[in-house]
């Protein structure tokens, strides 16, 4: 292991591969998946927010309304796209010793570009996102995709992956943003959607509300999965007489 080379990207959450390993179906040698698969995977099956739980900081910090979530999602997608493209393009040229430093450099360049452009184009949104634009550099998602995908795949696949993952990220953020904005403010995209007498749940736009919202979303999803799994198969396990 090179010292920083294999910076393990913490894959957390109910990582699906663990389950497959437990069933003894170890690491299938998949055939080259179609490009469309690269794209779709990031959107649902390996959704960065809802499944892989990467890039949690922006997910919590800026999703108190939908606009910010969308903006952050798209900004991240742009950075992903740019940096996966570059990393994939130069994947055979970068010496391992400075691999991470180079990746970060690439990412940081795109981030700064986005940062500056946002400030010029939509100062309001830029202000709302604050430091978290700059923090895209260290979003575990970006580094993770570079390491585990772009560094090993040809350019066209890396691009599809970036698009899918970016879109998935945006989707996840927007779901959070929508829930938090509607409950916490009574509005959606700034438009009042709840009745005027609606008492907003301030907690939703506070820090605890961020954790709580994602918690509830994840619980709902796993309840859903559980239900489906139960319907699909008789689970092995203890039979309580």
């Amino acid at each position: 292991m090179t010292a920083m080379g294999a910076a393990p990207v913490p894959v957390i959450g109910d990582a699906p591969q663990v389950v497959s390993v437990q069933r003894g179906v170890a690491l299938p040698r998949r055939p080259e998946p179609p490009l469309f698969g690269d794209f779709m995977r990031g959107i649902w099956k390996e959704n960065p927010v809802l499944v892989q739980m990467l890039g949690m900081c922006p997910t919590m910090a800026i999703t108190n309304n939908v606009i910010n979530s969308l903006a952050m999602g798209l900004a991240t997608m742009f950075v992903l796209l740019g940096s996966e493209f570059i990393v994939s393009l130069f994947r055979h040229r970068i010496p391992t010793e400075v691999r991470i430093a180079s990746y970060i450099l690439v990412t940081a360049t795109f981030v700064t570009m986005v940062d500056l452009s946002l400030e010029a184009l939509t100062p309001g949104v830029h202000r709302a996102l604050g430091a978290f634009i700059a923090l895209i550099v260290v979003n575990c998602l970006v580094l993770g995709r570079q390491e585990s995908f772009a560094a090993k795949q040809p350019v066209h696949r890396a691009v599809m992956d970036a698009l899918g993952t970016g879109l998935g990220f945006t989707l996840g953020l927007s779901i959070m943003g929508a829930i938090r904005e509607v409950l916490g403010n009574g509005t959606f995209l700034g438009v009042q959607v709840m009745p005027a007498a609606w008492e907003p749940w301030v907690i939703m736009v506070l820090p605890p509300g961020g954790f709580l919202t994602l918690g509830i979303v994840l619980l709902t999803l796993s309840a859903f999965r559980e239900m489906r799994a139960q319907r699909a198969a008789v689970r092995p396990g203890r039979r309580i007489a």
Partner: protein
Amino acid sequence: MGDLAWIVISSMLVSNFTLVMFLGLCPFLGVTQQVQTAFRLGIANTFVLVITAMSAWFLNRYVLGPAPFLRTIAFIVVIASAVQVVEMMIRKHYPALFRQLGIYLPLISTNCAILGLAIFQSNRGYNLIQGLAFALGAGTGLTLALSLMASIRMRTELSTVPSLMRGMGVVLVIASFLSMAFMGFAGLGAS
């Protein structure tokens, strides 16, 4: 002195990096199964934060004066490289320490808390001492949050909850409760 105390208290409790500012959440959610690991990660993180505070101060002071928009790039490259070099040094010269802390270094050399610290420190124009106080406060707060989370998760490990509740959902709800509890520190020292 009062100023330094406020920086420490504020970054540790009032604006706890993890629970209030939302920085460094990936390790907070991902590496808190064991108290010992979480604690070590927190210590390693504090260590990197201190390196960061120094690097950021150095860069702001001597390099980035004419082009502050290069902050993000410069910070991150310098921090990442510095951590890499330090990690290799520890690995070579203090293998025991490396086994305890070093293995976490790559994991955190590039997380949000680190860069966040550098950016906030620059935005607020802290000098070196203030920056170090900020780093120590933030690091302690991070360690606290990580360890608390881990100890609570170890307790919930023992519970007989349905499998549905064993995923990350519960962890996030716990985080939410911790964050609620930390709201009690709001305004501490400000009034």
